[in-house]
């Protein structure tokens, strides 16, 4: 395969105080592919994901070893600006977290503080269309985002991330707070987004990982047990633990 690695995770350990949450994980993230990180809850998959756009910086007890390279430059070097990192690596969270502002302001806020040029109205429309939310909200862009349903709020949060035109979108169990219909819509969305974006998605829903991702990494107790092409991981796992997990015998 001729894919290029956009994000290279090399021997990363993450500690919460004394507890080792992620142990020596090495993992490539390929450009314009969907990589799923699966594993039982508390296995360190969210922690790993949050280290990819330096969201763990806000947790004081959190410390990290190893190297993460983004376009071959060190994400954690002293000269790297975490704000710049997050500008280019967006994130969608487990629970929808729209700002208590209008739908329009939710989308436009990121681009406006970061001084992104171009026509803002067009940018908002493009983002909402990409997130498949435009038709539902185009007549009420000035309404509060808090009036949207949970599924709509989560698509709004995806649109908010897309409006920044990031290179990578990190998704932390984006469907865990949603009903099945909203979940299906977001999964459809992921296929479309793959055309233009690199996506890393953390999920505890194995069907979801199998359906949407190109590559899958399986984590348990902070250790990466297995990594490979999704089909292989689910149909021909090399490790016994992976097999037990993906066939639903534990987790």
């Amino acid at each position: 395969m001729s894919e290029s690695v956009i994000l290279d995770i090399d021997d990363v350990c993450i500690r919460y105080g004394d507890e080792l949450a992620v142990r020596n994980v090495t993992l490539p993230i390929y450009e314009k592919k969907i990589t799923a990180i699966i594993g039982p809850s508390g296995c360190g998959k969210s922690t790993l994901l949050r280290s990819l756009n330096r969201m763990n910086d806000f947790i004081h007890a959190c410390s990290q070893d190893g190297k993460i390279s983004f376009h071959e430059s060190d994400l954690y070097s002293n000269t790297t600006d975490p704000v710049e990192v997050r500008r280019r690596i967006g994130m969608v969270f487990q629970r929808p977290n729209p700002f208590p502002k209008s739908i329009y302001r939710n989308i436009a806020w990121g681009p406006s503080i970061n001084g992104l040029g171009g026509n803002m109205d067009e940018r908002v429309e493009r983002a909402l269309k990409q997130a498949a939310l435009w038709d539902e909200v185009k007549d009420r862009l000035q309404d509060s985002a808090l009036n949207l349903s949970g599924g709509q709020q989560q698509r709004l949060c995806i649109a908010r991330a897309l409006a920044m035109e990031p290179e990578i979108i990190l998704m932390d169990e984006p469907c865990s707070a949603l009903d099945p219909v909203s979940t299906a819509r977001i999964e459809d969305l992921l296929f479309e987004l793959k055309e233009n974006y690199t996506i890393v998605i953390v999920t505890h829903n194995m069907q979801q990982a199998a359906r949407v991702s190109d590559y899958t990494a399986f984590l348990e107790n902070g250790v990466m047990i297995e990594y490979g092409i999704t089909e292989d991981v689910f149909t021909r796992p090399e490790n016994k633990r992976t097999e037990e997990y993906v066939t639903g015998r534990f987790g």
Partner: protein
Amino acid sequence: MKDQVVSNLAWRHRKAAAFRYFCIGVTMFAVAILVVLIYQVTSLGMPWLDMQFLESFPSRFPEKAGIKSALVGTLWLISLTALISIPVGVLAAVYLEEYAPPNRLTEFINLNIANLAGVPSIVYGILGLAIFVRFFALERSVISGALTMSLLILPVIIISSREAIKAVPGSLRQAAFAVGATRWQVVRSHVLPAALPGVITGVILAISRAIGETAPLIMIGALTYVAFVPEGPMDEFTALPIQIFNWTSRPQEEFHELASAGIIVLLAVLLAMNAIAVYIRYRGSKKSS
């Protein structure tokens, strides 16, 4: 990292850093003011603070003046206030948390308590003057003062006790009910003991508020010149903050120094009570975690 088109980042970082330093600076400034305050109000009185100051009655001559009557008056006032307000306040909290049906009357009582907590203390003083001093003809006695103070701190006691009772896990109540306890048995043997550290903390803080209150006592006419100690609840009295007010409002420097010495005693008492409250809360939170 690859260069980016957007180059406003340096400026934005400077703004963020400036704002952060601004907030730190303002906080440090506020703390500094408070240090100056504590120093200023206590430094003048240090030389005056001796046994003679504690054992003498107020006097026209600063060098002979002391706070004996004020100290004993405050002790009387606070003991009676505690005796009245603690049982009433804690039991009211028990009723509202454990017994009260969720109806309009309860809601009305809740609203009342919340609003009473914000009524200026001087209005309680007026109430005390009209009801206790005049209507019940208790005159300017310790008991008038204690009743007024009790009304003043009741909302504080009720609100903090409720918080403490609310924090007791429901599973504890259910476990007690499940072995056939009545509601009062559940409250007495399980809820109140579990809530006790929180209740005591709240009560101490409320009482320390009563110790420092001045305005309501002036309203009910606690005398500012009392050269005797009260011997019963119907006696006239003065209190520490009143004595401080009296000395402060005189123009002579010596009286300001006396006021400062009184403030040292007052703050020492309050600080000790606060320390006890913080300690109890700290121990309570350690035990439960």
